[in-house]
């Protein structure tokens, strides 16, 4: 296999080895929240009786760890890929990763020992009412530590980019205004847009945490609606930026599988600049069922959600289809998995847009339709894209290629397991089954059967994943030694 997509990043030993260490850690760490996911479906499907009381702990920890792991892996993938153009500091990279690992461990402690089973978006005032006093402090601090890790890292990446490009350049304003200027690769532009949005939403999370601390330290009582708005600016945006960080890398590398490239230009610059404007307003769709929120804000939420959908469909997805249909692609395990992830992202995106429609949300909000769509674009979309790139990197650092059976058997196995798991969520949504229920009430007992089927599908996925993980880890280890 004579691929050299990542030859420059691989030569940067510090960045390379830090990335490989994190990737290896994340592949193994993923098994923890994944096992929680399996246990949750088993409890809901009545396959497991003993750990019932832990359901909401699994739920909270699963959400936090999954988002934490995949967001961090997306940042690591971006840092690695960007090092072709700019020089991120290895020291800051390691500091951020260490903070994130500490934050993740603190959150595990807070949830299971501190009893903070708050759900991953810890909706105020629930964290003030449950858990131990220490658990509460550790929980909120763990979010703070994660936030600081991501913040330092984002700032460092932006600084590294700023050493080479000016801000208007990175945002492609010279393309928009038709001025002459340097060529700016899409990966830089999309990275800058995402990093700015990430920094804004982390700063908002700081306000949220300070309000919590104020309430803990004094007798001030916070406003529940304000706190809900704050937590969703943060949670929604972090989850969405996770995808955009990967898309930045995708723009750079996917076309290489067909021997071409995605060029930056006027339209692309306009689209990503508007995405920056739109994306921070889309979070309002999480508050549709709070009728006291000003109605015009609800409409803005629906408009912004649709806007993000239009941008994704007519640019990224259209480009991928147009590119692939006109190029002779090198279909290996990575490129095929990437292509499938884009399809999954589209399918989940359609389900998300449907749910972002107010009258639909009235009947689907907080049902299993929600985990159905976000797992489709987050798990089989964004996370799977990262796994695909890990595979390419693993092959390149080790010089070991892939075996033909991976495309023929491993990929269908992973796909079948994941799709079965997802489909059961969609069926749950169809039947109005609530999300986040430890046990389904007799009136909604279809939920139990779907959960059981999902648990078996997850096992199929695990079988494939373990094989994949082993092959990647072996290659990473070999790569680190050279």
């Amino acid at each position, binding site marked *: 296999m004579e691929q050299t997509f990542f030859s420059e990043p691989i030569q940067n030993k510090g960045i390379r080895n830090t990335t490989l260490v994190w990737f290896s850690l994340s592949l193994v760490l993923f098994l923890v929240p994944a096992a929680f996911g399996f246990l949750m479906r088993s409890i809901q499907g009545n396959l497991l009786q003993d750990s019932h009381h832990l359901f909401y702990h699994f739920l909270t920890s699963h959400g936090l760890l999954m988002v934490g792991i995949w967001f961090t892996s997306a940042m690591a993938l971006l840092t690695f890929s960007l090092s072709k153009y700019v020089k991120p500091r290895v020291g800051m990279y390691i500091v951020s990763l260490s903070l994130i690992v500490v934050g993740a461990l603190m959150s595990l402690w807070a949830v299971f020992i501190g009893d903070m089973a708050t759900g991953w978006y810890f909706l105020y005032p629930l964290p003030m009412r449950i858990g131990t006093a220490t658990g509460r402090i550790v929980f909120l601090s763990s979010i703070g530590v994660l936030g600081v890790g991501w913040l330092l890292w984002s700032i460092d990446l932006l600084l590294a980019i700023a050493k080479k490009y000016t801000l208007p350049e990175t945002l492609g304003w010279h393309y928009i205004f038709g001025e002459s200027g340097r060529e700016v690769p899409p990966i830089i532009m999309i990275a800058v847009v995402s990093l700015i949005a990430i920094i804004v939403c982390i700063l908002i999370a700081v306000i949220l945490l300070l309000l919590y601390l104020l309430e803990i330290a004094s007798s001030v009582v916070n406003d*529940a*609606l304000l706190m809900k708005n704050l937590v969703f600016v943060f949670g929604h945006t972090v989850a969405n930026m996770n995808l955009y960080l990967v898309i930045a890398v995708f723009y750079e590398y996917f076309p290489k599988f067909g021997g071409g490239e995605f060029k930056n230009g006027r339209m692309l610059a306009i689209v990503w600049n508007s995405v920056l404007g739109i994306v921070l307003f889309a979070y309002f769709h999480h508050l549709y069922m709070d009728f006291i929120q000003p109605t015009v804000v609800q409409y803005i939420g629906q408009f912004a959600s649709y806007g993000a959908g239009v941008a994704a469909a007519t640019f990224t997805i259209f480009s991928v*289809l147009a590119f692939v*249909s*006109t190029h*002779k692609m090198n279909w290996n395990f990575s490129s095929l998995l990437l292509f499938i992830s884009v399809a999954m992202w589209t399918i989940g995106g359609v389900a998300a847009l*449907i749910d972002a429609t107010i009258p639909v949300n009235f009947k689907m909000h907080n049902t299993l339709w929600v985990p159905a769509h976000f797992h489709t674009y987050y798990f089989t979309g964004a996370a799977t894209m990262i796994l695909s790139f890990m595979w390419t990197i693993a092959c390149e650092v080790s010089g070991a290629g892939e075996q033909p059976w991976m495309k023929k058997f491993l990929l269908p196995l992973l796909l079948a397991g994941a799709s079965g798991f997802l489909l059961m969520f*969609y069926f749950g949504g169809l039947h109005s089954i609530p999300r*986040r229920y430890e046990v389904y009430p007799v009136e909604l007992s279809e939920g139990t059967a779907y959960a059981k089927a999902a648990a078996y599908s997850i096992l199929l996925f695990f079988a494939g994943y373990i094989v994949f993980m082993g092959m990647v880890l072996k290659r990473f280890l070999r790569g680190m030694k050279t």
Partner: protein
Amino acid sequence: MKLQTTIFVIWIISTVIVIAAFVVVYLHSKVKPSSITYEIINSRRFKFFYIVVILFLALFFVALSYTPYTREGKADEIIGVKARMFSFVLTKDTVDCGKLIEFRVAAEDVTHGFGMYDSAGTLLGQVQAMPGYINRLRIQFDTPGKYNIFCLEYCGSQHHQMKTSLIVK
């Protein structure tokens, strides 16, 4: 057809279309490049863009006329709802068929969800129950029977057991 079924069917159809598009494109990538280049397809992007924008704008305005936020006219009856860990207290648990009921939903401790299910287990509508606020949800019941109310916002260890019912005569 209930809304949930319609939505599911729409999603399935979209999914089939997406998969078909990806498969066709995939098969195309295995044959020799044809005379249609990336640049030519790129020039058709605007057509696609306009179609998508018009579709979404239409959907946007249609959706706006079906939102649950309308407050026009007076409700026939008002029922107060208080949600707390882990029960609902309703000022009244029997209502008459065909009347427009306004639920004024409040919460005592943490945020809960007020989800109204019909006797077949279909979610008719919902609203959040947030401390410090009163949310007004209007529903008109057209069929007599027993309706179940489930909590639809995670509120702690007994969240899944938080329910009550309403009789429509």
